[in-house]
C-alpha cells in the first residue's frame, strides 16, 4: 500500500497563510504531495480544508507563503491558468452546470484539451454506467449521488495530473461511500495524484499514503496514513474511539 515517497513533489504549500478579510484562516500551512500519492486532509468543520483546496487553485490567494504546482510558484495566478498545469477539482457540493446536460458537463470538463477525447469519455462512462443513461438530462435534475458521479467525471475529463476532491463521499449512501473510496484508488492507480478532503477519516486513511490533520487552520498532525491510523491522539480525536 504505502508507495515510495520518492516521486517529485507535484503540489506544495510552504508556510501558507490566508485571510478572509480580517479573519485569519490558514496559519503557516506546510504540505507536500508527491507524484502518484493519495494524500488526505482531515479536520473538523471550519478547520480550513475547503480553503486549502481553493488556495491551490487561486480561488483564495495566500497572504503569505507559497503554493507550488509542479515546482512552480502559482501565487497570484488566475484559476484558469493554474488549471492548465493539470490540476482539477471535484468541488464541495459538486457544483455542476445545472442548466447544461450531463453530456455538456462532461465535455466542458475537457474544455482545455484538443483532439480526440473519446477514450476518456468512454472511461468515465464505464466508471459510471448510470451516467450513460442520463447524458441528455439536465445536470440540475440529477440525484445527489448521480451529481457526484458527474462531478467526478467532469474533473476526470480534464485528464488531470492532480485531482483535488472536497468531501466526495458527502451525502452518499453507506454502500456508495465504500465504492467511492475504491474509485479513488482506481483513479490513482491510473496515474493521477489525489488530494482528498474527507470527514470519514478511517476510510480515507485506509486508502491514503499520507495524511494531514487541520485544526483551526493549523496543521496539527502530518504523517503516513499507517502511523496516523495507529496514533492514539488521532484515534481519540478523529477516528471515533473513546478513551
Amino acid at each position, binding site marked *: 500500500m504505502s508507495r515510495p515517497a520518492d516521486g517529485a513533489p507535484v503540489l506544495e504549500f510552504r508556510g501558507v497563510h490566508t485571510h478572509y478579510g480580517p479573519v485569519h484562516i490558514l496559519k503557516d500551512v506546510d504540505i507536500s504531495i508527491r507524484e502518484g500519492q493519495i494524500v488526505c486532509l482531515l479536520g473538523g468543520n471550519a478547520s480550513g480544508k475547503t480553503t486549502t483546496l481553493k488556495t491551490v*487553485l487561486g*480561488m483564495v490567494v495566500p497572504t503569505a507563503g507559497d503554493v507550488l504546482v509542479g515546482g512552480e510558484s502559482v501565487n497570484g495566478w*488566475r*484559476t*484558469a491558468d493554474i*488549471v*492548465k498545469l493539470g490540476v*482539477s*477539482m471535484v*468541488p464541495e457540493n459538486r*457544483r455542476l*452546470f*445545472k*442548466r*447544461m446536460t450531463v453530456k*455538456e458537463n462532461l*465535455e*466542458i*470538463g475537457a*474544455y*482545455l484539451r484538443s483532439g480526440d477525447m473519446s477514450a476518456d469519455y468512454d472511461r468515465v462512462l464505464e466508471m459510471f454506467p448510470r451516467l450513460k443513461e442520463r447524458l441528455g438530462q439536465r445536470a440540475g435534475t440529477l440525484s445527489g449521488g448521480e451529481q457526484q458521479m458527474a462531478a467526478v467525471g*467532469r474533473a476526470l475529463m*480534464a485528464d488531470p495530473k492532480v485531482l483535488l476532491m472536497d468531501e466526495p463521499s458527502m451525502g452518499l449512501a453507506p454502500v456508495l461511500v465504500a465504492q467511492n473510496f475504491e474509485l479513488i484508488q482506481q483513479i490513482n492507480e491510473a496515474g493521477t495524484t489525489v488530494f482528498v478532503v474527507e470527514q470519514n477519516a478511517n476510510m480515507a486513511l485506509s486508502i491514503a499514503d499520507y495524511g494531514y490533520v487541520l485544526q483551526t487552520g493549523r496543521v496539527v498532525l502530518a504523517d503516513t496514513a499507517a502511523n496516523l491510523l495507529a496514533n492514539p491522539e488521532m484515534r481519540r480525536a478523529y477516528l471515533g474511539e473513546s478513551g
Partner: protein
Amino acid sequence: MTASAAGAGRYKRRPGWVDAFLWIVRIGALVVLVWGVAGTVVQGIAGEGPTGEAWRDLVVAGIAQGAMYGLIALGYSMVYGVLGFINFAHGEVFMAGGMVGFFVANYLWDIRFWETDFVLSVLLVLVTSILTSALVAVIVERVAYRPLRGSPRLIPLITSIGISFFLQYTFAGLFGVAVKNYPPPPDYMRNRIGILGLQIEVTKLVVIVVGAAAMIGLYLFVEKTRTGRSIRAVAEDKEMAALMGIDVDRTIVATFAVGGAMAGIAGTLWALLFRGVSFITGFLPGIKAFTAAVLGGVGNLTGAMAGGVLLGLFEGVGPQLVLAGFGIPGVSQLKDVVAFTALVLVLIFKPTGLFGERLSAEDRA
C-alpha cells in the same frame, strides 16, 4: 425588478387584499381587452374599420419591428446572464451602429454606388454597423464595467445609465443633433411580393429574414460552439467556469461583442425601416427591447427573441385591435402606450415573464 419577479414565489402569504386587488386588475384588464376587441369586430362587421389587407400589413409591420426589438433584447439578456445587471447603455450601442452606418451609406450614395449596387451597399453598411456596435459594447465593458466587477449590482446598473447619456451626447457632439436620413432605397424595396398568401413589402421581408437569420445564428452560436458554451458556463457559475480553464474575462468580452453585433444588425434594420437616425435614436427602441427581454423572461435568450416579436406585434396590431374598439381617434400614435401596457399586464399575469426566468439561486434576491 429581480426582486419583484422573484417576489411572487416568496410572498406566498401576502395579505389577502393584495391578491384581491391583483385579481381586480387582472379581470379589469381582461374586460377592457375583450370589450375593445369586440368593439373593433363590430366596427369591422359594419364595414368601418381597416380592411383585411390593412390588418395583414399591421401584422407584418409588427413582426418586422419586433424582429428588430428581439435582436436588441438579446444584448440585454446576454449581459444580464453573465453579469447580472441590466446594461441600460445597450440602446446607445444600437444607435452607434445605425449612426456610423449612416456615414458609410452616405458616402456610397455620394460615389453613386448606392444606386448601382444597393445590395452590396447595404451589406457594407451592415458590416460597419455590426463592427461599430460590437466595438462600442466591448469598450464600454472594458472601461466602465470591468472595474466594477464584484461590486453590488446596483452600481454597474447606475453606471450604465450614465454611460447611456455619455454615449448619446458624445454622438451629438461629434455628429450634431440633427436627424440624419439614410439615402433612399431603390423603388423595388417598396414593391410587394406574395408569400404564404400575404402581400409583403420587400423592405419588411428583408428585415424579417435578416432578423430571423441572425437569431438562429445566435442560438446556434450559444448552444453549439465552444465560446457559446463558455458564455453559458460563465453565466451559471464564474468560479466553476474558471475551474474548467475558461478565461472568464475574455468570455465576458465575447458576450458584449456578440450582444453588440446583434444590436448592430438591428441598427441597419432600423435604417431600412425608418431611414432616420440621430443621437437619441437608441432611447425608445432600447427601452422597448428591454421591455421585450422582460416580457420573455430576462436571461432567457429564446424568451428575448420571442418577447421582441410579440412586443412588435402588440404595438403593431394592439392599437387598432383594442383601442379603436372604444372609438378612440388616431390610435396608431398610441403604440407606445400599448407596448408598455402589454408589459405591465404580462407582469401582472405572469411575473417571471412569458417564458419564465432562468435565474440561478443566488440571483433570486
